[in-house]
Structure formats: C-alpha cells, structure tokens
C-alpha cells in the first residue's frame, strides 16, 4: 500500500509540475499579447485565470500530498503491523522449543542424562532438538559405561584391600612374634625382622589410603561427626608421634588456645589427618628440626596448624601438594615412607567435615599446614558459652 501511495505521489507531482508549467506558458503567451497590444481584455482575463488556476492547482496538490502522505502512513502502519504479527507468530513458534531446549540443556548439565526434548516446530528448532537428543543419548551411554567402570574399580580396590588384610595380618603378626623373642635372635636377625615389620606397616598404610581414596571416589567415604574436644585429640596424636620425633632428635611442641569450643568431627578421622600431617613434618624435616601443633578459635571454626622448620616446599610443588601421588623433593622421598596419598586423603576428609586445608611454605624455613574444622555446639570444652558461638548467635 505504501508503495502504491509513493508511486501515486510521484505521478501526481509530475502531473502538477506539468500543469504549472503549462499554466506559466499560457500566462506568458497572454502577457506577450498584452505587451504587443494585441491581447486586449481577453489576454488580461487569461493572465488572471492562469494565476488563479495555479493557485487552485497548488491547493489541490497540497491536498493530494496530504492524502498521499496519509495513505503512505497507513500503508506503513499496516505493513508494520503485518510484519509484527508475522514475526510474533514466528517467534512464538520458535520460543517454546527453544525454552524447552534451554531447560533440557540445564538439566543435562546438572547431571540428568535421561533428559530429552520434543522434536517439532520449525525445521531449524527441530534439527536442533534432534541433535540435542542425540548428544544426550550418547552422554547417557558414555556415563553408564563410566559408572560401570568406576564401580568395577571401586569394588576391586575394596575387595583387594580387604583380602590383602588377612595375609598381611599373618606376616605382621609372626614378625612381631619373632621380635618378642628378641633375646634369642642375632642382631642381624633382629634387623631383618624390623625390615619386615617396617614394610608391613607401610603396606597397611598403603591399603588404608587406597581404600579411603576408593571410598571417597565412590562417594562411600562417610563420616559420623560428633561434638569433640580439640585438646585431647591433639595431645593423643602428639603422644603417638613422640617416639618417632624423638628418634629423629626433633622437638615436638603443642600450643592449644584455652577454652576452645567443641568441634563437630569424627575423632578417628581427625586423628588420621593429624597423624598424616605430623608424619610428613617428621619425615621431611632433618634431625634437630622443630615441629609444632597449634590450635586456635577462628570464628565458627577451629584452626589446627601443623608447622615444621624443615626444608619447605617450592611454590610449584605447593600448588599440587594435595594431588594424589604428589610428593616433595625426590632426594628426600628416598627415605620418606609415605604413600603419596596422605594429603589427598586428608583434604577429602577435611572437606567431608565441611572444613578446609591449606599449605603455606617458605623454602628453606619450613612449612605450615592449616586445617579448619567447624565448631560443634554453643558450648566450650569447659562448659561455658564459647566466644565464637556467642558471636555467631
């Protein structure tokens, strides 16, 4: 309609200009006759007629222009409305499948591999939907396979570590029997049995660590947290470690802030973490080094820090220290009996408790491992309201 309007407008404009030109020609001819004195009254009338005629033409053309403009405007509005209607139809026919796709993609990303979309609508959205379904189906199969492999791996590790325990019990038990008869053994024999026992203990640690990791991977590493006092936990671990640190002529000190709140933990697991950290501090530090355990209240958490004055950990190793089978400097590793799994497990365990663990180190000066654990209830170990709990409430 707008195009018709514009075409009509151009035609009208041309007609108008032609008419105006003709009118001027007629007027000029009349004026020539007047000037020549041959026109007389008729010529003067003709001049006035042409002036009037042009005025009429102008009125008419402005009226026509207005009409045409209105026509063009109406055409434009009608066209726009039509386009809008067409568009909204198009958009709504695309919108629903797209919304469904967005929703399905979200669920797929969140782990629901069984999600599928209805394939329909425009050919583009239908193609997109079909492609999405194909991808989801492949992911589902892939994940099924991976789950199955994971299950097999976890079962294998669980069974293996379980089955290895019985023979290990015998080897360790009989080696211990020999050591009990120490007086009737030659020094060489005692040394031999000590080696067997050392390796038994190492195997046990390896088995326990592997089992913990397999459980952690399978989501089967579970803890039963209960309110526990911090000080006895640390004192117990320090007592256990004392023999080893004394053998290495290392000092082992504890510094526990008085009146710490109870923490919500499984004590055996916290003991395991602290033994891991202290064993590392002991094994990686030279003779005469200082090892310290400290505990302090930190808002709604208690921080237990294990620090040593050992060789420290270079920055590049520090970043990967909580990864599996990552160990410190190879030169030291030779005499270090760890499994390379201790820190990875410690991290899993701390996080299972809802806490966190970080490592800090200045190479040449020592390392500090900080474990943060959540406070249990609003009661301190000596019975009063804890400062942390009071602040929290």
């Amino acid at each position: 309609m707008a195009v018709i309007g514009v075409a009509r407008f151009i035609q009208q404009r041309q007609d108008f200009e032609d008419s105006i030109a003709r009118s001027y020609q007629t007027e000029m001819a009349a004026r020539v006759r007047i000037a020549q004195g041959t026109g007389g009254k008729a010529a003067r009338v003709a001049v006035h007629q042409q002036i009037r005629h042009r005025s009429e033409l102008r009125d008419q053309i402005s009226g026509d222009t207005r009409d045409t403009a209105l026509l063009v405007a109406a055409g434009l509005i009608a066209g726009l409305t039509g386009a809008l209607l067409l568009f909204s139809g198009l958009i709504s026919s695309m919108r629903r499948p797209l919304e469904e796709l967005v929703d399905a993609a979200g669920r797929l990303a969140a782990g629901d591999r069984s999600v599928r979309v209805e394939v329909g609508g425009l050919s583009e959205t239908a193609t997109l939907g079909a492609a999405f379904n194909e991808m989801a189906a492949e992911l589902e199969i892939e994940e099924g396979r991976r789950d199955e492999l994971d299950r097999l791996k976890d079962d294998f590790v669980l069974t293996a570590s379980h089955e290895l325990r019985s023979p290990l019990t015998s080897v360790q038990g009989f080696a211990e029997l020999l050591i009990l008869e120490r007086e009737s053994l030659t020094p060489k024999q005692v040394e031999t049995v000590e080696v067997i026992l050392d390796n038994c203990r190492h195997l046990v640690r390896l088995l326990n660590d592997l089992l913990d990791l397999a459980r952690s991977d399978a989501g089967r590493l579970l803890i039963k947290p209960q309110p526990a006092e911090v000080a006895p936990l640390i004192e117990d671990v320090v007592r256990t470690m004392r023999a080893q640190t004394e053998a290495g002529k290392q000092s082992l000190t504890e510094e526990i802030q008085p009146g710490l709140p109870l923490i919500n933990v499984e004590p055996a697991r916290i003991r395991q973490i602290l033994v891991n950290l202290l064993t590392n501090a002991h094994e990686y530090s030279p003779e005469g080094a200082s090892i310290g355990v400290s505990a302090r209240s930190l808002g709604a958490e208690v921080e237990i820090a294990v620090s040593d004055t050992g060789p420290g950990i270079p920055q590049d190793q520090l970043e990967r220290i909580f990864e599996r089978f990552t160990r410190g400097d190879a030169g030291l590793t030779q005499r270090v009996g760890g499994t390379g799994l201790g820190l990875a497990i410690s991290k899993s365990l701390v996080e299972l408790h809802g806490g966190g663990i970080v490592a800090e180190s200045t190479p040449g000066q020592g390392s500090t491992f900080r474990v943060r654990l959540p406070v249990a209830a609003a009661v301190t170990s000596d019975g009063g309201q804890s400062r942390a709990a009071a602040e929290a409430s």
Partner: protein
Amino acid sequence: MATILVADDSETILLLMRTRLEMAGYTVETAADGQEVLDRVADGGSPDLLLLDAMMPRKSGIDALRELRAAGSEVPALIVSAHQNPGDADAPTDLAINGYITKPIDFDQLLETIAALTA
C-alpha cells in the same frame, strides 16, 4: 586364667592368635567357623570370651553370635573384621558386641581389651 574361644577360617591366623594369647597366659580353643563355635558351646564348652572373625564360610562370627545371644548367652565377644573401620560393612547395631578388632591386629590393644573383659 580365662579361656578364649577363637574362630577364624585361616589356620595361620588361628596359630598366630593361639601363640600370642597363650604367651599372655590364656587358655585357647579354636574353631574354623561360626557353626563350630555353636557346636562347642552346645557340647558344654563355656569360654570366658569369644574372638570371632566377622566373615567365615558356613557361618559368620556375626551370625554365630546372633544365635548365641538369642539363646540367652552373655559371654563377652569381640568381632575381628578385615574392614578398616568397624562401622564399614559388618557392624550390626542390634547385636551386643563387646568390641571390634581390625586387621592387621594390634596385639597390644587386643590384649588390653581382653584383659578388661575377662577381669
């Protein structure tokens, strides 16, 4: 001195247990599975303590203890488990068990526990 009935399907473990417990002065009887434990008790055996492996063929230590308890026996019983943590797999909560021992066995701890239960 107290009599301890030890049940394990591994002869090596039984030999180890017998040796260590006899060294500590206990009288030791052994059984190869849970059924043998029940048979001995039925035959009039009255051990002062049971040391039962959690998993044995024919009848597990747990099942044997369950039957003994059902029959009214209150003999102290320790369960030996190859699981790392007692609560992992084979720890029934509805059964009166006096303690868990995990493999490999810490004999110092085991002897301490036995001494406390047979005192």
